[in-house]
């Protein structure tokens, strides 16, 4: 794991197995602690990185992508989490919001990952270049603890 020790930039590369999620979460919390982020910002980072990485593992990696490349750092006052993969082009900003359930019988059981990312981050940027999906999630670091 790329230990941070308070460094403002950190990177981590993980493979396509779901068990790698534990490494992602530990890395996010290590970095957040080193940067003295409010606990709530660290939790939001943990939740969103888990959803984005899970999505890539279950979709892009099933199409042959081997690795997921993560970077954490600052963009002005915002924390930026960059996630890259080599799966087929996929812009999560284009995914429509799912309908909210009206009863337990018609409740949607899947597809909540991207709505969670939208709700618990403060901005989403996407580009596709050099055969890679590049997604940047922004988090306001001034959120209350």
């Amino acid at each position, binding site marked *: 794991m790329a230990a941070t020790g308070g460094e403002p930039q950190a990177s981590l590369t993980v493979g396509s197995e779901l068990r790698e*999620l534990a490494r992602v979460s530990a890395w996010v919390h290590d970095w957040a602690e080193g940067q003295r982020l409010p606990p709530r910002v660290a939790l939001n980072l943990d939740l969103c990185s888990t959803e984005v990485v899970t999505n890539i*593992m279950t979709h892009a990696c099933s199409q042959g992508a081997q690795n997921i490349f993560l970077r954490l750092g600052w963009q002005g006052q915002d924390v930026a989490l960059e996630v890259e993969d080599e799966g087929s082009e996929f812009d999560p900003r284009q995914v429509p919001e799912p309908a909210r359930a009206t*009863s337990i019988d018609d*409740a949607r059981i899947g597809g*909540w990952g991207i709505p*969670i990312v939208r*709700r618990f981050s403060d901005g989403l940027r996407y580009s596709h270049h050099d055969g890679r999906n590049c997604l940047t999630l922004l988090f306001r670091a001034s959120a209350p603890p």
Partner: protein
Amino acid sequence: MDLRSEQLADGVEKISLVGRMDSIGGHDINVRLSALVANRKLLAVVDLSEVSFLASIGIRTLVVNARAQSMRGGVMALASPQPLVAEVLKMAGIDTIIPVYPDVDTACSALMAGAGSR
């Protein structure tokens, strides 16, 4: 993740989940929760107080099992979600289709009252 279950004095089944409901912990807990709630009619309260993290896979687990219980004529309610977990439930509208209570005692009282009026 871990799961503990006990039958309370009023007949309500209390199921306590412990840990992170992500794709690592979520699958195993889905199997264990289904084994408890999918095959018999229950008044069940799932205590979420020790669930530190609820990812989308956890929404799936809760909805699938609440639906299975509903189809058997029972109820599966949720109790004591931590703030982030409560926000995830609210975002997906789960709190409008699965009853969520601030604590296990309140959930038990509501379930018993509901059973009495049925």
